[in-house]
């Protein structure tokens, strides 16, 4: 979950020289990623206007652990709600409602459920934006405005790369079907 976030954070201070190719079709991009992996080229990142299926396997991304975090947040919600109501009605201020026991577990179920969902949702959403380095007003550098429209982008970092290596990457991008090849420092 944290790998690419780490890359973003460690590189945040220095500018990145990026060579990237823009593809018109996600299937062509997917094949290019497979080929880059086979050629042992180090991909910086892949950007797309929508989630491309099979891309995470192709890039070798590990599965997101966000849902595990969600389970933990949910469990915290369950315990918070149930233990708090238990404490209120058995310790802090016991009151008899309708002749029922103080510790009336079935009546605690609805609120316990709601807080489980609430904690899991808020926790996961906050975790998601945090690990993605996103927040209101944050500006993350982007390579091309058309990436959120109809272009699929395969990017290589070229800091300290020799001209020969850059040429190799360029020819790879051309051969794999990139419609445009650009360099940008972000």
């Amino acid at each position, binding site marked *: 979950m944290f*790998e*690419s*976030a780490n890359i973003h954070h460690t590189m945040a201070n220095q500018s990145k020289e990026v060579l990237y190719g823009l593809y018109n*079709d*996600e299937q*062509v991009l997917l094949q290019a990623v497979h080929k880059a992996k086979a050629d042992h080229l180090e991909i910086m*990142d*892949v*950007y*797309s*206007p*929508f*989630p*491309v299926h099979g*891309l*995470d396997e192709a*890039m070798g*991304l590990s*599965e*997101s652990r*966000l*849902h595990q975090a*969600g389970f933990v947040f*949910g469990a915290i919600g369950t315990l918070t709600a149930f233990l708090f109501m238990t404490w*209120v*009605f058995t310790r*802090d*201020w016991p009151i008899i*409602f309708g002749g*029922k026991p103080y510790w*009336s577990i079935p*009546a605690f179920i*609805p*609120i316990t*459920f*709601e*807080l489980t*969902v*609430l904690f899991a*949702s*808020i926790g*996961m*959403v906050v975790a*998601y934006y945090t*690990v*993605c*380095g*996103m*927040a*209101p*007003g*944050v500006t*993350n550098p*982007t390579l091309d*405005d*058309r*990436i*959120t*429209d*109809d272009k699929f982008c395969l990017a290589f970092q070229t800091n300290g790369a020799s001209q020969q290596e850059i040429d190799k990457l360029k020819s790879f991008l051309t051969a794999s079907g990139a419609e445009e090849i650009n360099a940008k420092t972000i």
Partner: protein
Amino acid sequence: MSAAVSPIREPLIQGSKTYHQITEDICSPTERTPSMAWIIAFIVASSGLALYVFCLIWTIWVGIGSWNLNRTIGWGWDITNFVWWIGIGHAGTLISAILLLFRQRWRTGVNRAAEAMTIFAVMCAGQFPLIHMGRLWLGFFIFPYPNTRGPLWVNFNSPLLWDVFAISTYFTVSLLFWYTGLVPDLATVRDRAKGLRRKIYNFLSFGWTGAAKHWQRFESLSLVLAGLSTPLVLSVHTIVSFDFATSVIPGWHTTIFPPYFVAGAIFSGFAMVQTLMVMTRKVLNLEQYVTLEHIESMNKVILLTGTIVGVAYLTELFVAWYSGYIYEQFAFYNRVMGPYWWAYVGMMSCNLLSPQIFWFKKIRRSVFWTFVMSIFVNIGMWFERFVIIATTLARDYLPSSWSYYVPSWVEIGLFVGTLGLFFTLYLIFSRVAPVVAVAEIKQILKVAGDQYTGTNAHKAHHAKGAGVHH
């Protein structure tokens, strides 16, 4: 999404769209100056909102006495409106969550607008429990916070408190789900914009880049939120029905209420989605994204849930008779034949009888009839809540306290006013955000676009890099 698609499935995206064309079609309404239709609608809606604010201030200033509630009928239009709005607020999450889990692709055309509608409807719903408490400035008493009165806690055993938790959780989770889905699309709008507009959308899109890892997490988050929202949406109206079902009032004290309320909520929610989408697709020229296929699918849901609700009505009548319990029998006799018989007729004809015309495919696919029916259902479901609440209270155990209730102008103004609030918010939304989920439409293009699937799909075999294997 590369799963096999039957060729007889109707395409969900018409007009042989390219990715760029999709962006253009859906984002451009936010970039144009508003049309005359929008301006007139906005003036009408915001006048309604002004009426709401006026009646709200009147209620707070004069007090609850400005309503026509009495000792017998303590819940009238206020709680009727609350249940009606919260029911409407169920379709969005149902479409976005349950249909996501069921992998129903047609949800992509309507989920964004339906979720927005959900949030606005819940906002309208939330007004009524708060103002019906009378002393709005003490509204925070409903939350369990350490206070100087003991601390004396709220009653965690009360369904009314469960409602507080259910509705605030529902609102929060729906908002998070909706906005998280909106972020990539706001980034699309950002990347098309210049100047101040770009700065605003940059702020709103949270620095979205479209990186592969972010998309992977996005999908994981969406799936889990959908999984959480599914029981949540069912729990909310179940808990609303507990407000009635756990009381000992004949006509309310029934175990059928939770499923019956949930079915009714889905029913009314889809009707409101139809009302909005029929207008939105026309005004914003989105007929190729919200197709007749979408409308027909939703009409099928309306037919199903309307029939479930109808069976519930008949079951209630049967069980009342079969119970042999005279108070229960009287409660239902009174519903059908009592002073509010006209509300019962309205409910039965709008909710059970009229949706049956959707057995005909021609009518299911008619935009005109869909719109007419959606209004019928909205009215019918309002009557249902009125029948359950006011009719039941009007004839309680003691004939000496029997009463009749007609709303005051303030109560009518508050209801009409929340319609104004709802439509004002929806109209603003339709101007500032893409009303159809851009990224999701692009994602299903190659399995649901009419150049790839359906009867005119032959071009797909020759299309370059189509990625669809037959």
